[in-house]
């Protein structure tokens, strides 16, 4: 499957580095998840992280948004050092993410889930909400408008009032994407957004991811296993294996990298 990306001029040309990972190392007890990883992510680009299973890709994402704390190394966001920040602070800085195993709020509807994603923009306290004071009502309506735009964008109008627990897997992933972009993030971390999808669902998802990048200018960092997808939609790729970086460059460069080929074919190295 092919997606036309570079055929038109970008609305947001790729800029300087927004995320800089420098010699990041992290271990769980005796298991070294990441060893001296260094790479950067440029503003407005689509950066893929790939690698065989267990390579440390999810751990890398978790470090970037503060869920894990690295033992060594530096993490920079827009020039500012943010190593060891909390996930909450990362959210405030504009880093949003989705999870491999769908972390939606199963007890809530699609609409409520995505509205929850707007929480950083809603400042009314509980008393204002309880008494329906003007600020609370105004915020509710304004954010509802923004969320409806996202719902329209992701073509999920027909299920907006459905509890997410009842939705099929593919739609749940789409809702999770919606919730992540509801925060209008600068950087979007996607952990295997297309896992478990069939070809049509993948095409839709690719379209949405690219539209988010194109329309809102959001920098995308995604973990993905489907090579076709990675080659088609990413600007640059980082390859991890056993917690180490073994490749970094454009899709074509990485595809030709012998280390990468060996890693995937399981050749001892």
């Amino acid at each position, binding site marked *: 499957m092919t997606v036309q990306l570079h055929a038109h001029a970008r609305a947001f040309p790729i800029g300087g580095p927004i995320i800089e990972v420098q010699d990041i190392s992290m271990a769980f007890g005796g298991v070294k998840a990441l060893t001296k990883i260094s790479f950067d992510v440029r503003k407005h680009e689509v950066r893929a992280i790939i690698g065989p299973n267990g390579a440390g890709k*999810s751990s890398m994402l*978790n470090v970037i948004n503060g*869920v894990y704390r690295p033992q060594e190394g530096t993490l920079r966001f827009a020039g500012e050092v943010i190593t060891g920040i909390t996930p909450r602070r990362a959210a405030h800085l504009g880093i949003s993410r989705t*999870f491999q195993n769908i*972390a939606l709020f199963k007890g809530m509807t699609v609409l409520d889930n995505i509205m929850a994603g707007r929480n950083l923009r809603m400042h009314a306290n509980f008393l204002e909400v309880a008494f329906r004071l003007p600020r609370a009502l105004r915020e509710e309506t304004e954010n509802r408008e923004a969320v409806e735009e996202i719902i329209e964008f992701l073509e999920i109008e027909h299920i907006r009032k459905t509890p997410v627990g009842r939705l099929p897997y593919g739609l749940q992933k789409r809702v999770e994407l919606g919730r992540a972009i509801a925060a209008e993030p600068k950087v979007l971390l996607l952990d295997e957004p297309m896992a478990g999808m069939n070809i049509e669902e993948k095409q839709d998802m690719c379209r949405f991811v690219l539209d988010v990048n194109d329309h809102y200018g959001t920098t995308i960092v995604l973990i993905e296993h489907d090579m076709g997808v990675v080659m088609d939609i990413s600007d640059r790729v980082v390859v991890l294996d056993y917690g180490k970086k073994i490749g970094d460059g454009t899709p074509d460069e990485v595809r030709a990298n012998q280390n990468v080929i060996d890693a995937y074919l399981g050749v001892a190295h």
Partner: protein
Amino acid sequence: MAGFQFFLEVLVGGLLSGVMYALVALGFVLIYKASGVFNFAQGAMVFFAALSFVGFMELGAPFWLALPITIGLMALLGLGIERFVLRPLVNQHEITLLMATIGLTFVIEGVAQLVWGVEVRRLDLGIKDQPLPWLADNAGLFISQIDIFAAVVAAILVATLSLVFSRTKVGRALRAVADDHAAALSIGIPLKRIWALVWAISGVVALVAGMLWGARSGVQFALVFVALKALPVLIIGGFTSVPGVIVAGLIVGAAEKLAEVYIGPSVGGGIESWFPYVLAILFLLVRPEGLFGEKIIRRV
């Protein structure tokens, strides 16, 4: 010197009462280890077991007959619980199962009351509730024979169960089931039979605890609340550790008694009602998995 003597007495008294808590908590641990269910109704089961035993004896059955009948009854109860309460709820959230066992508590209490009535009963094990003469004379310590007997029984029970869990094939199967039901099924472990076995064993443990406790303070409804005290024991010991339960029981029993005697008077007494729980909270804040429990890792 007299002060130390007194302290020793209080301490030992606390430790022994802790043994009792541990016995009740043991039933919890067994079921939790094997099925991941926290059986809130364990205390009610202890009460029901003791009551039934005494009831059968009152109906004329001698000791050696009443005992196996009650054991059989408890095993049946366990099977019934597994079949009618747990199996329909098998994949639900753990809180749902907990609430179901709270409901179960009420049912068991009600049945006990319905069948055997509400009077307090005495349970006679043939052991006098008097200080052991040897200890009283030689060390000046007044410790009840029943308490000592209970401690010995508890030690034997814990040792046996620990060995069963760690050394035998059945024990291994139980641990596999506790870890992952689906995986255990897929390697051919007869899940239902294992659960039935665990609930039966737990019923027997409840009976032992009930008999010992009943011998000490009579078989009465308040026994059900003793079960609530088992919760701090479980938290401090770790929900999945058999030896942990004993250690934690000793800690809770001793701490509770010592606090009551030494801190109690300055605040009017009655500290026992809440002290173990506060102790448990402190433990949770410092060491959430308990002394011997498995560390809980949450992966994203």
